[in-house]
């Protein structure tokens, strides 16, 4: 309980600050959605130690399933997102269970192959996905409870919905990472052989990590499609997986707030830079390299470092005053 009490205000503050500080609502919406997506990647990489190029599968799947449910099933947007989440969990369990049968570079290559497969399947099934053109005109069907209608038909309302989702998903993931499951994942990441010898069925832990990661990524993918009213094919491209990875790594994968920083950095800096310098991805490549060499913990560790430095300075200054 104390965990929620501590983190809930921080998360609400982040959601409010994004709304108030960022130049546009759509930018703030995008930051929160991609923060969830980066968090999904961070669960795999930072906790289970799995470098996966498969996140675009869940992202694209969530977008397609949520969109198709709005178009063909006519269910409300909440149900649509829940179906997308369930689909994400199912496919993540499958992809995860297959991919973790191999380790190291072979694991990475498998996730890469699965993403390419997902891309070409989406491309081929153009009757459902719209192929190259993407799935256009995705509606947001309103929720109708006993004649009381909840619609997310304005960008403010949509932002409010995304913000609530953001807070709840982050609280859930904070709880999971602070659980014994989270601790066991860290143990497996540090020493898989020992964990196995101690009795842990390592593969099921990894599959469960995949399921959590895949579900929240698919949910966020669904929100992104509803946000754009559009589910483009580029959602399932390998390059999307790369961007998600880079976002998570630059933000820092050992801490849930790293995901927020990573998303903030990529979405906001990308938005600002691309206005006058279209090739800002060049910079991103360089930053990725520098992060790996000099700041493995990402921006979040840098931020903590600054805090520590300041508190030490402030702390020592105050003790000097006392003496």
């Amino acid at each position, binding site marked *: 309980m104390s*965990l929620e009490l501590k983190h809930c205000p921080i998360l609400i503050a982040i959601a409010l600050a994004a709304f108030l500080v960022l130049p546009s609502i759509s930018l703030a919406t995008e930051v929160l959605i991609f923060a969830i997506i980066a968090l999904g990647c961070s669960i795999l990489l930072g906790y289970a130690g799995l470098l996966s190029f498969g996140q675009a599968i869940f992202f694209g799947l969530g977008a397609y399933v949520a969109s198709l449910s709005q178009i063909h099933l006519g269910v409300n947007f909440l149900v649509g997102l829940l179906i997308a989440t369930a689909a994400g969990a199912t496919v993540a369990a499958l992809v995860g269970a297959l991919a973790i049968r191999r380790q190291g570079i072979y694991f990475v290559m498998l996730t890469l192959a699965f993403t390419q497969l997902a891309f070409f399947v989406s491309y081929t099934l153009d009757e459902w996905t719209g192929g190259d053109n993407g799935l256009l005109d995705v509606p947001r069907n309103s929720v109708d409870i006993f004649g009381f209608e909840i619609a997310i038909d304005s960008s403010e309302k949509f932002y409010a919905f995304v913000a609530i989702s953001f807070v709840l998903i982050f609280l859930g993931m904070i*709880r*999971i990472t*602070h*659980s*014994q*499951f*989270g*601790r*066991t994942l*860290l*143990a497996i990441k*540090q*020493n898989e*052989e*020992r*964990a*196995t*010898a*101690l*009795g*842990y*069925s*390592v593969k*099921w*832990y990894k599959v*469960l990590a995949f399921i*959590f990661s895949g579900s929240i990524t698919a949910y966020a993918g669904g929100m992104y499609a509803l946000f754009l009213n559009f589910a483009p094919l580029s959602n399932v491209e390998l390059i999307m997986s790369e961007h998600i990875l880079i976002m998570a790594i630059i933000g820092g994968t050992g801490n849930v707030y790293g995901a927020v920083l990573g998303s903030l950095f990529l979405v906001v800096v990308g938005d600002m830079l691309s206005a006058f310098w279209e090739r800002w991805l060049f910079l991103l490549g360089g930053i990725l390299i520098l992060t790996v060499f000099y700041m493995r913990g990402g921006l979040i560790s840098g931020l903590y470092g600054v805090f520590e430095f300041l508190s030490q300075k402030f702390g020592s200054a105050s003790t000097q005053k006392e003496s």
Partner: protein
Amino acid sequence: MSILTTNRLTKSYGEFKAVTDVNLDVQPNTLHAVIGPNGAGKTTLFHCLTGVQRLTSGRILFDNKEISKLGPEKRSSLGMSRSFQVTSLFLEMTVRENLQIAALGVSSIDGFRFWSSSASTVKKTAAAVDYALETTGFENRAETIAGDLSHGQQRMLEVGMALAQQPKLILLDEPTSGMGVDDIPMISDLVRRLTKDITVLLIEHNMGIVLEISDKITVMQLGQILVEGTPNQIKNDQRVREAYLGGETEDA
């Protein structure tokens, strides 16, 4: 009533037979050592017993259950724990956290509890963790990060990890390996004390220690059992002397 027996245990790699027809018989609450010169098949035998490698033929019975086909992760919940020859810890965690993870490993579901806090889950390990801390002498260093311990201390924690699982049988793979001469008594005392509560199977190449603390010794050579007996019998056995001739004649 033996606790662990192997029946014609054989492991071959293609044509090469690393271990041939080994029949072990480990009695409860004893310290049973397996020794032999390099290439005798000790390590392969150990891997088969821990489940890291599959046997080619033969059977392993633990506590009257056939375990030959169980993976390594299945054996600890039956009451069989192991240490590693090369220290294998969770180096970024504290001593206590290492022991907690070890203690929870025997439960098949506790590690999967993702909704309740870790603090509430590890409560149930308190007794096992305290026992391991006490037995290995880590009471005052429980909050030290494992990576910051000295090499000798890491070797002790290595044994402590197996103890925290409260096993019936503990398999120790060269627990003194890489230890300084001064630290070795620390481990050998510990191992000797353990047989009060549990059974110890020790793989070791340090003949001196083995002769000093074991109840029963199995000497292996070229993948087979050469001779078996009490330390006194082994000390005076001509075949053992020959096998070790020119090598480790620490019994002299």
